[in-house]
């Protein structure tokens, strides 16, 4: 199916071979130790770890929007933080623009010229005692970009590109003098000012009021279409993913359940978990999407044996309880990890 025109920009015919790989994440793992009390030590109880991400691999191509989706505990945010260098991975590698980065190189400063991140709560993004200009000037200084006069102009440009116009009337304000929507735009501007090739956006609209979400979503879409900026969007909301994303990576308890072209994955998911997420979304056709997963997300400490989703999956059989599923290919750039993948019939009941 051809992609419909979005936001007044006609789709450009391009095949995968023309877009080049920007970022490759390979077998990324992040374990957190669980602090043990004296009693645990005396009992010599087993050392416990929280497996936040447990072997995640995917690639991000230039100029595309990728959605990392899943419930809490899926590892979607940890994945974003690790790429950004805010967390040090336990193992695995990240290749950025064909350059392999060692664990040591994954520090916030190293990639931050090319990769920028925005967060869910825009109020926590800014130092409340600094004006926007002071924040911008500090970012540019650290990045070593522009002279003092240039920096002011660069900041103004970024603000107006983020939709805060006229930028002159915003740049000398304190964060408390902006509304939530304006502040999220300002946060996007602080990312834009260094001209990143990849923006990691962690639930960028979920804290915003309904009437201002659309503006921020369209801003992200525009930046992607016009500037060819790739976006890794972390979200729990499939309708946002449907609107913005070219590709989806569905995660569950630290592993990828399914990944592939967004529209295909959402229209005909192969993994039961993807189908469960769709069925839980509001205003979908309930006669087709009547798939309810049982219970709640399991624990990252006591991971279920075999397939991690099996305790919640109505199709689980013995093999699911014993063996972890391996990757299967469903189509071009589309794979899933399930012993009993869904067919369209199965969903229709």
């Amino acid at each position, binding site marked *: 199916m051809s992609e*419909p025109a*979005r*936001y007044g920009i006609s789709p450009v015919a391009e095949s995968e071979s023309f877009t080049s790989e920007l970022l490759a994440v390979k077998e990324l793992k992040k374990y957190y130790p669980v602090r043990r009390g004296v009693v645990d030590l005396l009992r010599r109880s087993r050392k416990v770890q929280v497996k936040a991400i447990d072997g995640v691999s995917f690639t991000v191509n230039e100029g595309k929007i990728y959605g990392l989706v899943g*419930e*809490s505990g899926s590892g979607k945010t940890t994945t974003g933080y690790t790429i950004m260098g805010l967390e040090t991975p336990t193992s695995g590698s990240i290749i950025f623009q064909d350059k392999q980065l060692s664990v040591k190189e994954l520090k916030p400063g190293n990639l931050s010229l090319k990769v920028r991140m925005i967060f869910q709560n825009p109020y926590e993004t800014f130092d409340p005692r600094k004006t926007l200009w002071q924040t911008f000037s500090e970012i540019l200084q650290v990045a070593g970009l522009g002279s003092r006069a240039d920096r002011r102009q660069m900041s103004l440009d970024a603000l107006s590109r983020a939709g805060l116009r006229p930028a002159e009337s915003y740049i000398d304000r304190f964060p408390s003098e902006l*509304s*939530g*929507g*304006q502040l999220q735009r300002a946060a996007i501007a602080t990312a834009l000012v260094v001209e990143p090739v990849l923006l990691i956006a962690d639930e960028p609209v979920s804290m915003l*009021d*309904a*009437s*201002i*979400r*659309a*503006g921020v*979503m*369209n801003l992200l879409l525009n930046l992607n279409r016009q500037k060819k900026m790739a976006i890794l969007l972390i979200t*729990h*909301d*499939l*309708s*946002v993913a*449907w*609107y913005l994303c070219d590709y989806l990576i569905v995660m569950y308890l630290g592993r990828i359940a399914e990944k592939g072209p967004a529209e295909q994955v*959402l*229209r005909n998911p192969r993994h039961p978990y993807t189908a*469960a*997420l*769709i*069925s*839980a*979304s*509001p*205003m*979908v*056709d309930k006669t087709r999407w009547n798939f*309810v*997963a049982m219970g*709640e*997300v399991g624990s990252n400490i006591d991971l279920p044996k075999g397939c991690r989703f099996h305790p919640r999956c109505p199709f689980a059989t013995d093999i699911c309880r014993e063996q972890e599923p391996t990757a299967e290919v469903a189509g071009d750039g589309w794979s899933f990890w399930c012993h009993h993948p869904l067919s369209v019939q199965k969903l229709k009941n």
Partner: protein
Amino acid sequence: MKVENLKVSYRLRNRDLTAVNGVSFSVERAQAVGLVGESGSGKTTVALAVLRLLPANGNVSEGRVTFDDMELITIPEEELARIRWEGISMVPQNSMSSLSPAHRVGKVFRDVLRAHFSGSEEEVDARISRAVELANFPKKALEFYPHQMSGGMRQRALIALSMLCQPKLVIADEPTTALDVIVQKQIMDEMKDLRRRVEASLMIITHDIGIVSEYCDIMVVMYAGMVFEYGPTEEVIHDPRSPYTKLLLKSHPLLFDTAKQIVEIPGDPPELERIPVGCPFVPRCPYAQSICKEAEPPLAHISGNHFARCHFV
């Protein structure tokens, strides 16, 4: 329950800020009503005013709330204490801070019931069993402390608590906002099922139009302390008449919507200190005319039980 021309103001630095400005709606027996609005729209203030739980600086300056022929705003505190839990109960948003961390949930159930019901120990047990069964809360979890339960379980405990005294109306303030999407659906489905079985009325306060559209019979859209649209949910969703509701419905992407076009609403919701003169939506409204800046639009009757606030419905 019937809310008529409710006005609530908060006193702040010697100024009175109007948070709810003339809100009227009713909740019929066994009906589910959804109050939807953005932050600052006054939706939670309405719920607090109904239960007389407003903070000390909040004050109902006008209006009536009648519940079963009783005037809730003026009845004495002792009578109100009886109506809370037995007539109207509330499911709060944050389940972690609503349950005592130092007590097993079973104890909370027992205490609440003992305060409102003087039956034998067996009768108390029977009532608790019925409530937990209705809310799909596992009975053995009554022995747990709140921290031993997942978010979904805690929310089910609160729903079971709200059903304990067999109320006629349950007010749920953002009942599933803190939960993951799949659990959110499980809980909402369970609440729907429960409501059918006990024939209780439900008032849901939420920012999520999706929840209202799927689980409520009547939808009340609030903006800047006023009702902007009121009517049967189906009708409001398919034929919204106030520009705010229209734009709000178009501003959210829908899964599987092939048009992939969403509409931006310029600007921000107004702050309580600076609610515009005339129609409060006027600075953001693409259809605004000169009259909108001068006169507050009336809540116009559209058809049947459907009302919308605009000069040009």
